[in-house]
């Protein structure tokens, strides 16, 4: 078991290396560089641009830049500086990552908080109108473009005043106590979490349903019923716990994909997450910032997968030794 964990952890490093190489390559292939937009200012002289190019190391050939980048990572654990912010990459990204993780977690709570009970209902009421209605209902949310749902909910917030219109804190949040501040964030979190969380609901609900149906067919369930236990106890007490096993791996995958997938909601609701910083960095070709952001997001994704696989290995030891 331990060797399996170790093996998986070690695999992460070459993976991240490969990701950084691919991203760097793509950045180089795109025309222009960070200074292209800077040069648009009529006041900036050619000499100034040249100097800036030297400062940022952009006058070096791309392989030299990449090797220097790697050297800095492995020797000094320095992931480079953002050209626009003039600060180390992780200083810039830190808050964005935490905010996105918060949103992703809240979205997951929404997803699973609904998928589990609704999946159970769909399973026990298999093939009835209730089952079909739940399916269709979840599909509806999946089929509406996020752009539209986000905008409509934002308008709802503006018109009714029930929820704040975007953002993560109220503008006077710093004068609140810790508890009030947490509640403030929670209020801001509701709408974006709903928009993001309801999207994967359809497939998660289906998976819950399928998994529970599989378990309900098993022998020990029939035994439990024969023993005279109520259906509720059979389903929730015995079957559900086992039905959740295959789904545990999905927690990891969901979190990982939500990290970058919440970008549209983050923009519409002005949620200060990783997505917008990264996209802006991509557009302005702020290369070390992009690399840092992609590595960070990929790391979370990979970590999510790893945790999921580990949980699966714990539940099903054959995998670790197979």
């Amino acid at each position: 078991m331990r060797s399996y964990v170790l093996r998986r952890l070690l695999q992460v490093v070459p993976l991240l290396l490969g990701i950084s190489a691919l991203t760097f390559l793509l950045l180089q292939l795109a025309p222009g560089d960070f200074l292209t937009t800077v040069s648009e200012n009529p006041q900036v002289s050619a000499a100034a641009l040249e100097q800036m190019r030297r400062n940022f190391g952009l006058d070096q050939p791309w392989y030299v830049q990449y090797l220097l980048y790697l050297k800095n990572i492995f020797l000094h654990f320095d992931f480079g500086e953002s050209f626009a912010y003039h600060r180390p990459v992780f200083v810039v990204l830190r808050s964005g990552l935490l905010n996105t993780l918060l949103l992703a977690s809240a979205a997951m709570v929404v997803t699973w908080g609904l998928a589990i009970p609704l999946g159970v209902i769909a399973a026990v009421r298999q093939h009835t109108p209730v089952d079909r209605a739940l399916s269709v209902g979840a599909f509806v949310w999946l089929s509406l473009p996020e752009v539209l749902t986000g905008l409509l909910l934002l308008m709802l917030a503006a018109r009714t005043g029930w929820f704040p219109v975007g953002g993560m804190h109220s503008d006077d949040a710093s004068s609140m106590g810790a508890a009030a501040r947490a509640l403030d964030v929670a209020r801001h979190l509701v709408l974006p979490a709903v928009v993001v969380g309801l999207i994967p609901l359809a497939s998660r609900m289906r998976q819950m349903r399928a998994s529970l149906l599989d378990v309900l067919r098993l022998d020990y369930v029939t035994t439990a019923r024969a023993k005279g236990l109520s259906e509720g106890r059979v389903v929730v007490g015995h079957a559900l716990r086992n039905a959740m096993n295959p789904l545990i791996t999905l927690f990891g995958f969901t979190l990982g994909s939500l990290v970058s997938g919440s970008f549209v909601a983050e923009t519409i609701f002005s949620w200060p997450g990783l997505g917008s910083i990264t996209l802006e960095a991509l557009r302005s070709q702020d290369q070390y910032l992009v690399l840092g952001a992609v590595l960070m997001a990929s790391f979370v994704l990979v970590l999510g997968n790893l945790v999921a696989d580990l949980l699966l290995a714990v539940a099903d030891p054959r995998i670790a030794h197979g």
Partner: protein
Amino acid sequence: MRIETKGRGHFARALAAGAVLALAAALGGAGGCGGAKPQAPWVDHEPPPPDPMVTPMAEIGVHGGRFRIGATTGPKTLNPVVANENSSNDVCGRLYTSLTDVDYTTGDDVALLAKSWEFSPDDRTVTFHLRHGARFSDGHLITSEDVKFSFDLYLDDTLATSVATMLSEPDPRTGRRVKFSYSAPDSYTFTVTSPRPDALMLPATGSVRILPKHVLGAAYAEGRFASAYGIDTPPESLVTSGPWRLKELVPNEKVELERNPYWFGVDANGSRLPYLDAIVFVVTKDQSGAALKFEAGEIDALDNVSPADYPAWERGQKKGGYRLYDLGPSYNTNFLWFNLNPAPPGPDGRSPGPAVGKVKYAWFSKADFRRAVSKAIDRDALIAGPLHGFGFRNWSTMTRGNAKWYDSTIAGVDHDPEGASRLLAGLGMKDRDGDGVLEDAQGNKVEFGIVTNADNEWRQQMVNLIRDDLSKVGIRASLVPLEFNTLLTRVRNDFQYDACLLGLGSAVPADPGMGQNVWKSSGSTHYWRLRSPKPATAEEARVDVLMDRLVHTRDFAARRAAWHEIMQIVNDQCWLVWLPVMDLRLPIRSRFGNVAPSPMPHRILWNSDRIFVRPGHRGS
């Protein structure tokens, strides 16, 4: 098989979910006006400034209140020397002072840190007399040492700032840039000398933001200056010289500025400014999100409003408690030009010819062709369509809203489709095969592409209409939207495009001299023939001479005459095909006084030290 509705655990889960939702709704309902605690009346804890600057304003205000404004992105740095984008400059403009400022109504220079100045008889040296007793936000005195230090920073070659261009002159003999020289003879005197008289001397020196030597000197000496005053600098360490200092910066969310207790500006009664307790920049990435926030009362002003929304904003003024200010024509211009650049030199160091190819160059290089295109464009439709009727014809970078420089006698080549067809026929262009598209004398179809930036919805609409206009005179143009960075690379480096539609923003001050790089043939934004080693035509040579005169004399009448002639030549040659400019309107809450938005940036906060909350409107 009968199945019970809910099992125990199931019910508990549902209950929990319901509780969470109920809690969320309760929190939502309990929202509203965030924590309005009654503010204690303002008391000035510091002794009054010994050499105060009496700031002109429309009405005397009262202290207190907050002003929240939307920003598309957060600032990337609070270091004014290395800041390169609007989001950072908007905030830095509030935090730091400079020697002089520009009056937003007259365009003249006004005193700021320098309470007076005089020019030497040869007009090359200006001597500033600094205010005594002005202090930084930590109480430290501001002296000429700090001014000199700030100049050192801006003119440092390794930091490569854009202000350095304004503070230097190309030497006519060697072509290399010679920096202005400067010195601090005593603690409250500062002199700057330029090689030749410079009309923009004061705007140039006024661009240098005064930074504290006692805080940043060490970082500069050690080469760490570029990363100083970044987004993670603790507010107590961020010492500023302007009316505001940093209270809190939450990355990508908000920047809160609070009153600088040592600011030397006062109102006519001698009360220290600024009136407001705080300014908050609220990051709202999305324009529709920002508008909704404004409607909901979460922010107090909006910028970059689309003309499509003006009628709705107009109607909602009373109910929404705001006023829609009409600023008149924007200073941001739009124009179209043709690529006359030579292709980049090959391995032998020589250019193989015009970048667009000989065929297209033969059309574009003829003034009549460019005039025909300008005549073909229906500017009324451009105003009615993309601008929804809220636009003005414009023939110069100094638009009608610019009181100091606007010249109504400058003529442009306006809509005249018959005239366009005549000019094109005169160039030998006829539709010989009857397909609706002209062919030139050699039989090539007259068609070309117009590039513009893909993310600007508005410019694309304009190109779409222009295409339609051109097809009516037989020219087949196509719209080529490009990503902005790609567009700039094309336009500035490899010249792989035919025609381009872009615009210029407003400089501060809005003086034609600030656009030297556009009009001079050697300029780096002389788009149609970037960085020419020598002027390509007699007209370009004449413009070079006039531009030189415009920049190097301080006689306003002579400058205006030079500008007039420059624009006449430019418009006659149609190097730029002018397009209409937008009528600017901004909604700002009525409860604020001394609000005087201007087309020059920062449109709303340029006089942030004078804005106040009218009594009786405190709270929400």
